[in-house]
Each structure stands twice: as structure tokens, then as C-alpha cells.
């Protein structure tokens, strides 16, 4: 809502600096979106002199003017006859490309074949309230080409205020002025008395019937005769314009002006277009139709609330008037209407019909049925009767249908409760003083009566807020919180996520944040889990329709984006939730996702020949899991999830529990053009499962003082035999070998002893496939580390063990030693 501070000052009892006024907006809690200091904002508007003027076309409504905007430079401007202009006048001109404070951009236009290169600016169009005729005219040729603000001092600001939904009373100048006056210690100056003049019963009578009083709290109307419908005076037009409304005619302008002033929408019907001197406020019936002011037509399908005459609907209640009953230049008698509707009813209609207007916006937030008549209606009536405006005369009494009068609400306050809530000492007097600035009244026992325009006050805490903001939030001193001690901590999963982040970044990974809401294809690719996808019913684009089940797809997109930028090696990860639905149960699961590819050592200056392959990617996963104290992990071949290549894919398990996947990414299957040009590996681990299998704090295993024995065996095995199986057999064989071990005699030991060597590590240190071992075999070199904790093993003992192991492997798998 645009507010011109010059206009706002009409309602303030005292003068103040512009800056104080602007500060008051913020202090009181009116949210200022933007402030346009008009003297600065209008700097680009220059004074041009009209050198030629001729009528354009034969409607008499358009003129083509030649305007000198700087010495010797003329532009053509087509202007409407909204304000007369004469040759020789200096007037404010905005050339094409100029932006007005309201945000409107002046563009070149074409009128009847004439190119217009600018606009003659009326005060209101520039956000100014009119000084005199609505157009500033300069006679002194010295002003040619000068900036408007240089020749005509401007002290107005156009403030774009966003009124928060709880305060519809501030959707009018009076409400804003009341708030501002309260912090500036001024009085609110009402523009008219709020006493209804009892007008004698004359001529017409109009009956009003409200069908359902819960939907329409109050309805008032009055007939006016002798209305002269014409253009409004400049002071009124410019005020409407500063608020962004277009002047139409004085009757419509008056209703709009009063709405802007009081926040109460009004409507004026052409009384002679209505049937039967009767107004009904009722639901529209399914069969009815109504053509609205914007020439659209609504039907009764949703049964919106309407205003009807004796026969037909004449307006969509609270939203928009009807076409057939609008006030036109020919109207002689009008029916002025003010009403107060149920906010939810108006909001529902507005939403269902998808029509939102200045009027519905105010009604759906809540209006005041009391000020409706004594304030807004009264003011409009005065303006209609004003000779300068329409010079109308009342032709009926006011019909006022107000079944249940809305009373002011009262709250019995206790200053101790306010003090406790705000954390500072608040006295009864402070409460009374603050609240009386907002026209609340009180009795001796601090019972506060709240005006009915304050629809937001439904709890005493709102009054505590009013007191706090009028005392100013800054005046409440902070104090160290004294409260029961509570245990600060992150959740266990969050702690694990932090650990993952620090491990992966230490290993050269870049952390990403990618949108969880993505295309169905990306959302579902790489998913290793059962469960239905979760779709959004009202997406804003095709790129964001489905909540993802895997993080890897989004990371592949990140790789592709960076490959396009020239990157050649990739390490990206993200820790985030994935989503699926199991029989309607939403399953939100935290995952660790990673994609790697390219050089192992991607340091900037010493090139590495080696590229990430499956085993290197696996190594990263193994180290990560070790860092997270997860032990007993197995990697098994499995049918690959969508997006992975089957020949390089492993499901990661802990016992029978699946905790993740690792595999080479299949760009073809995803229909993605390969820009990375290196094998990419994706990995994903389920954090919630990891949480259940990670080991508790480790226990110290002691330090062996004997020497470890290292032995390598090189064996040839059938090509289909998996390493994990060999390693398992080897461990079993070693255990059997230990039970068959004969200890050799030692010098230092006289008593008998037994050896219990333990296998500490088994690692594959080389694999080889080639002609020399045969087509259906492969060669492995395996290093075993073992020791006995009490005696260093002799080479003979080590040999005994190895011989046994080799023979066992041979009998089990047909393995031969090379």
C-alpha cells in the first residue's frame, strides 16, 4: 500500500520532521517495503515547454504536443485531455525510459500513428498530492530543462507499506495515522465528525434484508438525488493516484477515496437501475448469473454471497459491483452502500472465484461495523453533498440493518503479568497511557475496553505487545536468562552427520546443497529402496515435481554442470533426507551421497596418472565407515539399482542389513550426455541404519610386545572365486593351523608353553590375470600378518602355519601356490 506522507499529514494534529514521520512507521511496526523520497525520486522529471499543440484525431481527447525539453531539443508527446495544457507552459515531463516512484516505466507509445516520446506528468501520477490544479505549471523560461525537484521544492515521501494480516485497521490512512500519532505523541485528526446527522425521512425508502446475519454483520444504504457525475477535483484525483488507483468519476472516486481513508470499502449503485426499492444480502442461487464491473461473469456454482435487488444479484458482496448497476455519467440518483461482511465468507468466495480486489482484501481481513457508518459512510455522504464534488442531496433516510451490534471487548489486565511477560517493570499507569493513545479506554481497575476496529485483539498478550511497542522495544533492557538449566546437545544422528562432513571434506570432497524436489527421473534414479515416490500436487515447474529417493542423481547433475565448466575430476557429496511413502507412511531417511571420478590426486601442479576406479571409491567408503566406527561391513554383488552399471556395483551390508550402495554410474541409462569423460562412481549410505550398527566406544586391546610375522602367499585360483571367499577360507584355515602347530623349543623357556598366534590382518596386495596363469584363472598375492602375544614365532613355526593354510586352500578351492 502506497502512502503519501503529505496526505498522511492531513490526519496528524502537529507538524514534525519528515524523518521523524518515517521513523515512526518502523517504530510502531508498520512494515516499510520501500521509501521514495520524492524530491530525489523525481529528479529525472524535467521541465519542458510546450511549443506546439494540435488535436489528434477527432475525438477531442488527444493532443499532439511538441515539447522543448532542453534548449533546442523538441520531443513529441501525445497527451490526453485529462488536464488542459497550453502553448508556452512549462510542465513536468518524463521522457521514455523514466521510472516513476510508483514503479511505472514510461515507454514510447504510438497513438493514431504518432510516436509519443514521453509523458506530461500530473502530480498524482508522480506520487505527489496536488498543490493546485493537479499539474504544475511554470511560466519562467529559465526553468527549461531543470529538474522538477530543483524548481519546486518537494517534501513528500511515497512509502510502500506492507500491512500485516493482523491489522486491517491500518489498511486506511486513518488507521496508519492513529498508529503514527501514538508514537509521535500527537493526536489523530479525524477528517469529519463521527456523529450521524439525523436526516429527515424524504422521498424514497429502501428495505434491506440480511438473509444470514452471521455472513453480513451490518448493511447500510441511502439514496442520493441530483448527483452530478463528473471528473473529481484535483486534490482528490491526485490522492487516488498516489495510492495507485485510477480516477474514474467523482462518485466512484469518493467511494474509493473513503476506502483509502477509512479502510472501509463502499459502493455506489445507480439507483434507477435497481428494481423494487429492496436490497437483499443472500447467497447467489445456482441458476443466477452476474456480470461484474470488469465485464467478467460469475455464476452461482459456489453460491457466493451477493447483494441483490428485488429480482437479481447486483453485486458480488464485498468483492465487486455489478456491471448493470454501476454509476455512469448519466446516473441521476445513486444508492450509497456500506457493509460489514464475515471475513471467512468473503475470503472463501474470493479464493473460489479467483477474484481479489482492494475491497475483498480489506473485508477478508476484517472491518469495523461501527466506524463503517459513523466514520466511512458519513464521510462519503458529506463528500457527495459537497458542491465542489457532486452536489447531491439525500433522497432517503439511512436504512441501517445491524442485527447484532458488535460491542467493544474488554480485558481485565494485571500489570504484574505484563511485567513477567516482558521482563521489565510495567506500571498500571504506563499501560493506561499507552493504550489510551490507541483510543482504548480503561476504568480504575485496569479493565481495558478495545475499539471494534482492532479485530486482532483476541488475547491480552496483544495488549502487552501494544504497550511494548509504544514504550518501544528498544527500551526493554535485555537481561541474562535466569532459568532452569537444560542440557544442550545435538542429536546423535546430527553428530554423525557432522562427522561425515568433516571426514569427506578432509578427503577432498566438496559439499553440495541440491534441491530435494526434482524431476521424477532424477528423484527415482539410484534408489535402492522399496517405497512409492512422493509427488507434489501443485509444482511450480517441471523441474520440481517429486521428492527424491536418492541423493546420487542430483550429484550427477552437479558433476555434469561442473564438467561443462571444464572440470575433469570430481568429488562431491551431500548429506540430506530422502523421501518415500510406504503404505501411506512417510519415510524420511537421512543419507550420505557421494560421486567421485577423475584423478586420484588432483593437485594443481603435479599430474597424477591414476584415476578413481571401483576399488579406490570403495577405499573411500571403507575409510569413512571406519571413521564412523562401523565394523563388520560386507560388499556384495547384486542386481544394480537404476543408474548403476551391474558389473561394477556392490550393495553394502552389515550382516543382513542393507546400509548402502556403491557403483559405477551409467550415464547412458540416465540419458545424460557424458561430459565428465571419466568413470564416475556413486555411493550412498543410509544414516539411520548406520546409527543402529555403529560400534560403541572402542576398548583398548593391549599392546603385544612380540614381533609380528609377515608372510605373502601367491596363489592361482579359479577366475570366478571371489576374494572375500578366499579370505574367509584363509582365516578358517589359519585357525585350524594354529591348533595343529608344534612349538619349537626356545632357550629362555624351560617350562612347557603353548602358542596361540592370531591372524591380525589379511590383505590382497596384488592381482594378476593373463596368459601365464591361464584363461580361467587369476593370480593373487595375499599378505598375512600374525603373531603370538607371548612368544615371537620362529620361522619354522611360521612355515608350519603357512604350509597348512596353503594345503587347506588347495583342498577347499583347488588353489595352487605359484
Amino acid at each position: 500500500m502506497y502512502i503519501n506522507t503529505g496526505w498522511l499529514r492531513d490526519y496528524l494534529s502537529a507538524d514534525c520532521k519528515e524523518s521523524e514521520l518515517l521513523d515512526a512507521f518502523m517504530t510502531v511496526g508498520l512494515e516499510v517495503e520501500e521509501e521514495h523520497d520524492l524530491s530525489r525520486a523525481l529528479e529525472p522529471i524535467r521541465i519542458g515547454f510546450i511549443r506546439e499543440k494540435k488535436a489528434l484525431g477527432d475525438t477531442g481527447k488527444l493532443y499532439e504536443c511538441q515539447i522543448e525539453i532542453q534548449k533546442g531539443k523538441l520531443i513529441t508527446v501525445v497527451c490526453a485531455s485529462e488536464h488542459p495544457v497550453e502553448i508556452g507552459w512549462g510542465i513536468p515531463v518524463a521522457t521514455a525510459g523514466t521510472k516513476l516512484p510508483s514503479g511505472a516505466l514510461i515507454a514510447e507509445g504510438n497513438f493514431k500513428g504518432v510516436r509519443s516520446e514521453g509523458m506530461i506528468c500530473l502530480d498524482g501520477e508522480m506520487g505527489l498530492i496536488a498543490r493546485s490544479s493537479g499539474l504544475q505549471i511554470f511560466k519562467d523560461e529559465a526553468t527549461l530543462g531543470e529538474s522538477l525537484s530543483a524548481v519546486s521544492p518537494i517534501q513528500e515521501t511515497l512509502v510502500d507499506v506492507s500491512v500485516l494480516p493482523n491489522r486491517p485497521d491500518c489498511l486506511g490512512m486513518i488507521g496508519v495515522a492513529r498508529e503514527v500519532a501514538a508514537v509521535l505523541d500527537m493526536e489523530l485528526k479525524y477528517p469529519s465528525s463521527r456523529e450521524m446527522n439525523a436526516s429527515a425521512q424524504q422521498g424514497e425508502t429502501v428495505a434491506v434484508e440480511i438473509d444470514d446475519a452471521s455472513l453480513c454483520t451490518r448493511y447500510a444504504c441511502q439514496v442520493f438525488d441530483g448527483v452530478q457525475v463528473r471528473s473529481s477535483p484535483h486534490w482528490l484525483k491526485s490522492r487516488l493516484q498516489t495510492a495507485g488507483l485510477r480516477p474514474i468519476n467523482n462518485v466512484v472516486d469518493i467511494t474509493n477515496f473513503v476506502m483509502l481513508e477509512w479502510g472501509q470499502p463502499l459502493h455506489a449503485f445507480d439507483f434507477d437501475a435497481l428494481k423494487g426499492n429492496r436490497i437483499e444480502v443472500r447467497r447467489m442461487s445456482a441458476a443466477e448469473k452476474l456480470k461484474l464491473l470488469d465485464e467478467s461473469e460469475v455464476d452461482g456454482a459456489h453460491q457466493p454471497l451477493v447483494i441483490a435487488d428485488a429480482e437479481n444479484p447486483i453485486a458480488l458482496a464485498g468483492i465487486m459491483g455489478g456491471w448493470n448497476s454501476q454509476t455512469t455519467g448519466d446516473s441521476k440518483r445513486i444508492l450509497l452502500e456500506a457493509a460489514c461482511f464475515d471475513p471467512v465468507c468473503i475470503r472463501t468466495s474470493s479464493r473460489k472465484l479467483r477474484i481479489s480486489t482492494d475491497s475483498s482484501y480489506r473485508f477478508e481481513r476484517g472491518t469495523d461495523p461501527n466506524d463503517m457508518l459513523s466514520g466511512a459512510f458519513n464521510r462519503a455522504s458529506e463528500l457527495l453533498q459537497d458542491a465542489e464534488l457532486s452536489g447531491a442531496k439525500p433522497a432517503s433516510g439511512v436504512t441501517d440493518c445491524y442485527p447484532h451490534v458488535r460491542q467493544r471487548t474488554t480485558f481485565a489486565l494485571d500489570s504484574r503479568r505484563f511485567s513477567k511477560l516482558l521482563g521489565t517493570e510495567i506500571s498500571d499507569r504506563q499501560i493506561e497511557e499507552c493504550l489510551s493513545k490507541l483510543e482504548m479506554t480503561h476504568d480504575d481497575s485496569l479493565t481495558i475496553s478495545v475499539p471494534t476496529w482492532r479485530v486482532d485483539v483476541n488475547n491480552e498478550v496483544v495488549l502487552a505487545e501494544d504497550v511494548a511497542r509504544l514504550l518501544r522495544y528498544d527500551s526493554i533492557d535485555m537481561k541474562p536468562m535466569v532459568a532452569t538449566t537444560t542440557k544442550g546437545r545435538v542429536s546423535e544422528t546430527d553428530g554423525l552427520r557432522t562427522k561425515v562432513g568433516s571426514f569427506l571434506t578432509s578427503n577432498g570432497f566438496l559439499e553440495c546443497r541440491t534441491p530435494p524436489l526434482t524431476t521424477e527421473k532424477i528423484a527415482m534414479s539410484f534408489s535402492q529402496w522399496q517405497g512409492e515416490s512422493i509427488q507434489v500436487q501443485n509444482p511450480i515447474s517441471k523441474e520440481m515435481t517429486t521428492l527424491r529417493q536418492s541423493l546420487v542423481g542430483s550429484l550427477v547433475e552437479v558433476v555434469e554442470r561442473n564438467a561443462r565448466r571444464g572440470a575433469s575430476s570430481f568429488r562431491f557429496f551431500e548429506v540430506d533426507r530422502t523421501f518415500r511413502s510406504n503404505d501411506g507412511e512417510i519415510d524420511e531417511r537421512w543419507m550420505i551421497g557421494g560421486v567421485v571420478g577423475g584423478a586420484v590426486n588432483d593437485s594443481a601442479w603435479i599430474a597424477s596418472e591414476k584415476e578413481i576406479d571401483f576399488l579406490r571409491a570403495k577405499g573411500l567408503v571403507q575409510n569413512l565407515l571406519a571413521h564412523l566406527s562401523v565394523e563388520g561391513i560386507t560388499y556384495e554383488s547384486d542386481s544394480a539399482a537404476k543408474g548403476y552399471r551391474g558389473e561394477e556395483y556392490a550393495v553394502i551390508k552389515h550382516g543382513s542389513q542393507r546400509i548402502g550402495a556403491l557403483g559405477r554410474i551409467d550415464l547412458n541409462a540416465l540419458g545424460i550426455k557424458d561430459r565428465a569423460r571419466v568413470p564416475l562412481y556413486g555411493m550412498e549410505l543410509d544414516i539411520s541404519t548406520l546409527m543402529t550398527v555403529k560400534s560403541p566406544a572402542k576398548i583398548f586391546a593391549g599392546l603385544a610386545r612380540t614381533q609380528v610375522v609377515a608372510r605373502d602367499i601367491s596363489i592361482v585360483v579359479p577366475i570366478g572365486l571371489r576374494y572375500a571367499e578366499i579370505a574367509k577360507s584363509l582365516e578358517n584355515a589359519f585357525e585350524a593351523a594354529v591348533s595343529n602347530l608344534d612349538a619349537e623349543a626356545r632357550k629362555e623357556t624351560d617350562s612347557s608353553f603353548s602358542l596361540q598366534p592370531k591372524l591380525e590382518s589379511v590383505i590382497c596386495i596384488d592381482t594378476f590375470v593373463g596368459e601365464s596363469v591361464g584363461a580361467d584363472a587369476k593370480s593373487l598375492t595375499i599378505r598375512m600378518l600374525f603373531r603370538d602375544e607371548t612368544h615371537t614365532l620362529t620361522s619354522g613355526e611360521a612355515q608350519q602355519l603357512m604350509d597348512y593354510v596353503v594345503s587347506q586352500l588347495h583342498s577347499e578351492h583347488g588353489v595352487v601356490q605359484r
Partner: protein
Amino acid sequence: MSDQNDELVEDALKSIAAAQTLSELDEVRVHYLGKKGKIKALQSQLKSLSPEEKKEFGKVLNGIKQSIQGALGEKKAALEESENSGPDLEAIDVTLPGVSALPGHRHPLTATMEEVKAILVGLGFRYDDYPEVESEYYNFDALNTPDWHPARDMHDSFYTTVGNVLRTHTSAFQTRAMKNFGPPPLRAMTSGRCYRRDEIDASHFPIFHQLDVIAIDQNISFADLKWVLYQLASALFGEDVQLRFRPSYFPFTTPSAEVDVMFNGKWLEILGAGMIRPEVLQAGGVDSEKWQGFAFGLGLDRMAMIRHGITDIRLMYENEEAFLRQF
């Protein structure tokens, strides 16, 4: 014989002086003092001498040995010193960059999130996760924002096909936390993704991050809220941070405030805060006659952007290496 000996010493001293490296010097040492060296050869002559001659010759030999050893020692010290200092063709250029994998980086958003969390943990708040696919009840109704409420217009929500709402703010956690953790005292927080149907531009993205906090006890007041926010802000922006509290409106807090921080000479809006509405406490099963508390929530995207001078929110979701490596 003594001439010969003088010559030997002289030669030895010359060789010692001529040695350029420690290994050359060692060769010289072996040549004279080694097992098969010249001195050993002289010693072997002792056997054939009379006791008196032996005595004399012994002295001479000792003299020779001492002068050679002395010279060797001095030269060795000198060579060691020169080898350990001064320029040398084979010394490494220590200013060359180290060889390593390129370092990894946290995303500025998660880094900011973790920093804020850590500060609040220190102030006694517990961190837990709450659903992103949320019910309308927790996202709106429980927060004093029933269906007809115009405040719902402030949040244009995504709905799933089965009728859930993607949480529009982390405030959705408030009454869940109250219910989960039973009667106060309670200090709880959460953070994470939120979703609104905003058009994408430099400062809006339909998916963004918030962090939300509640504290409930018998006497927790607006003044306490200000104190906690100052602790947080000074940890993030420095001890002399300036904050500004402006009245505002959230359906679930009253009094409500928008809080601005003075940053690079400008007031920047960083969070919304207020005292929890009695209606919300009740929805969380907390007796509002007995308990009161505050809530605040901040936009982490905006916070990260302010702290790192990032001018376009989209950069944070594009994940370009050139961007990610800057933090």
C-alpha cells in the same frame, strides 16, 4: 725416519685440506688411520725395535696420530657446517606448492547452520530433526493459523498428492517439540529445508533453510529473548554487534519482533522472534497459565549470504566448484 714421518704428516694434512666432502674426508681417514692405513703400517715396525726405541717411536707415532686426528676433526666440523647451511644446487625450493589432493570444502549453508547450532547448544538448547513432509496441522493450525487465516497468504505452500504440506517454515517443530519432551523447562531447536512456492530470483528460491528455536520456562521473558539473541548475534557478528527490534506479526508469537543487525553500515533483517502465543503453548499441551517462553527463527540462506557477501541465492544451489572452493 723422522723426515719420512714429517712428510707423512704433511701429506696427510694436505689431503685433509683438499677433501671437499665428508666422504672424501672419510677416505683420507681410512688411508691414514684405518685398519690397513699408513699409521697401522708404522705401528707394525714397533715389534722389531728395542724397548727404548719402542718407547721413543711410540711417542712419535702418537704425535703423528694426534695431529692427523686433530686436523680430521676440524675439517669434519667445517664440512658438516657447510653441508648443513648455505645454498646448494641440490637443495629443494621450499616455496613450491605441496603435493596433495585439493582440499575439500563445506557448503557455506551447512557451515553457517553448524555454527549457529553450536552456539545455541552452548546456551542449553537441544537439537533434533523434525519432518519436512508435514501435516497442515503442525505447519499451520497448531501455530494459531487456521485455514481461513489471511496469514496463510504469506506462505504459498506445496502440497503432496496425499495431502501433506512440505513444511513452509521450521516453526512447524514447535508444538511437536512441546509434545515430545513433556512438561517444561524446555529449550529446543531444529533446522533444515523449508519449501514455498516462490518464483526463483536473486533472493528467492523455493527451497531454503531455516533454524527455529523455542525456550519455555516459568519466567522466560521478552528481555531474556533479547539477551539470547545478543549472545547469538555477537558470536556470529562480533562483540560490538548492534541489533534493532521492530514490532512485527507472526500468528504464533505476541509480542512479535523483526530483528535487524547492523552490518557494513546497513540494517539487515535477519530473524523473526517473539513470545509464544498462549494458544500455541496449549496446542503443544503446555499450560499457558503456568509457563511462558519465546521462539525465534532465522533464514540460514540469508544469514550465509550476509556473512559471506553472496549476492545471489541461486549460486548456493548451483554447486559450481569455483563457488564451493571459496568457503
